[in-house]
């Protein structure tokens, strides 16, 4: 295995999340190493999105540890940390049910991603200090660059709400990338896309990994996409982790086939 050669970025141990009486995640372990694309799959309601929410600070897990080891930074346990701090530490995400800022332009949506990487204060902004002007220019340039990468540069001045569905998903990715993450978490990025768009997304994700040098954890129901691009796959069912391994291993795993009975695993 290549694991020991690469540095570990995210380490989740025994993660558990309860909602009232419902155990949505039941002591799940998961690791992500530098440069990997890892998929998290499982039937509806398995707890995948909840897992994301626990890792990114939207929910505070009931039990377990979420540890991060940013490249070149200090390792730390991030349970219960505020989402914005976690983002600042280098993990960014997209949402299953798209959450853009509808009444802001496409470019402004991406610029928000730069918020935690810039430091212009209110005073700076009022006086248009040198820092404000410089940071604004950098923010605009980087945001444009990201929009070009996801193919949205032409719609930069449109309102985000006017984008087509597939474009909105790509905009969410660009916005997340703007935060300079070392780990990108994508929640069903292909949901609602047609086959053409999905295959473009496939390329986009692989390209992002190469160009931005980050690792990607993605939740996805589109098995073709998952099998195509992931290095490793984790499978969840009813909050429990039932399997992990390479795409080939997963394809042949009995438990996984059972869990997915009725859905197509063959792809």
């Amino acid at each position: 295995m290549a694991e020991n050669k690469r540095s570990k970025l995210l380490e989740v141990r025994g993660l558990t999340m309860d909602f009232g009486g419902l155990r949505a995640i039941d002591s799940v372990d998961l690791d992500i190493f530098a440069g990997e694309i890892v998929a998290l799959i499982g039937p509806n309601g398995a707890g995948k999105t909840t897992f994301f929410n626990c890792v990114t600070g939207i929910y505070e897990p009931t039990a377990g540890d979420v540890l991060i080891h940013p490249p070149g930074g200090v390792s730390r346990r991030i349970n219960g940390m505020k989402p914005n701090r976690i983002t600042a530490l280098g993990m960014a995400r997209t949402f299953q049910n798209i959450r853009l800022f509808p009444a802001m332009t496409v470019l402004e949506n991406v610029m928000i991603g730069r918020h935690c990487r810039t430091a212009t204060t209110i005073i700076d902004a009022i006086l248009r200090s040198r820092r404000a002007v410089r940071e604004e220019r950098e923010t605009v340039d980087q945001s444009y660059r990201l929009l070009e990468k996801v193919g949205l540069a032409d719609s930069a001045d449109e309102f985000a709400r006017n984008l087509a569905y597939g474009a909105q998903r790509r905009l969410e990715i660009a916005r997340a990338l703007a935060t300079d993450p070392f780990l990108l978490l994508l929640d069903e990025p292909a949901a609602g896309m047609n086959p053409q768009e999905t295959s473009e997304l496939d390329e986009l994700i692989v390209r992002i990994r190469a160009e931005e040098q980050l690792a990607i954890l993605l939740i996805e129901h589109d098995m073709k996409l998952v099998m195509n691009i992931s290095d490793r796959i984790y499978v969840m069912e009813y909050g429990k982790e039932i399997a992990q391994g390479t795409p080939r291993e997963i394809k042949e795993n009995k438990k996984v086939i059972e869990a997915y009975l009725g859905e197509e695993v063959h792809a």
Partner: protein
Amino acid sequence: MAHLKRSFGIGLWFMFLTLPLVVVRVNTLSQEVQWRWSNLLWVGVGAFAIAWFWQFSINRRAAGRASTVADKPSLAQRLADDPVLSRRVLLGAAAVAIVFPWLVSTGQNFYHVNVMVSALIFVVLGLGLNITVGLAGLLDLGYIAFFAVGAYTYALLSKNFDLGFWTCLPLGGLMGMLFGVILGFPILRLRGDYLAIVTLGFGAITKIVLENWDTLFGGAAGLANIPRPELFGLLLDGRQKSVYSYYIVLALVALTIFVTNRLKNSRIGHAWMALREDEIASVAMGVDMARTKLSAYALGAFWAGLVGVVFAAHNNFINPDSFTFMDSAMVLAMVVLGGMGSILGVIIAALALKLLPEYLRAFAEYRMLVFGAVMVLMMIFRPQGLISDTRRKYDYDGADGANGEGDHGGK
């Protein structure tokens, strides 16, 4: 035809609804019952007409949704996109504003100047609340309390410590801001609707305290003999004083516009708007919710405090009656009517809402009735307000990253 029939039914329904309140009046003193049947007729006819128009508008709105007419460039957007034109309009407006007092006032008659001063005070309030509600989406129903903080700060400081207007002006703003921070700190993590109620409560508490703490705030009678703004120790007559107040508040308006405009398109302004649009997405993108909300809330309070000082100085005396929920509601109506986040819209709305009742006395009586209706109707038919917020466009010249100054637009 179906429309007409429905409208007729609605007309009848409203005649039924208003029957006891609009027709019957029991005079308990003279022990008489007044029957005002003619009113019922008016209600019926009015409701019929409005119902007919309403259905027409709702249909149009539904059609408009489908084709997103709302996103066609508005007049304001075109103005903002054309720097030359917008500069000209701005200069023109500034020129009119500057010569205004000399056009409308003569030696003894400076009524119009005074009216304009109160209107401009509300323009500043509207622009301040626009930061909190319009940009950051924090529904503040007790905004007028910060105005009161500024006004009482000046009244007390000038009375007890003999501090002058110009010293107190920034102090009033800072006091407003301080109160904003103190109140905002615990409550800003509340959900939007709870925040609305709590701020409403704060507004009410402020008024009760002002009314009951006689020794400090003068109780319901308020505080009198507040000094006017001083001008290098010159003695000014009545008209000159008003004109002087006018220029002071005009300068404040200009300052507010300048600052809001700078902030709106800045890092912090974007963060405010993002929070308004979607809190969870914002924090997930690295926006510090507590700090960002607090800054919007405190900054809004700052303007109210600042202009509260001017209000106290211009009026000579203040009492709690100037700081009721209806005043908060009026400022909110300005922001809603003008268009959340839209500077130009809020200015126009504030002037309209203050000046119309002043000059149309018949309207004055129905003022709050109309404001209430306007708030409902705007939300239904034109939630973006009269003048929808414009977005600035940024230049980008390609890969070398040499983008233009990008300072135009937005102004």
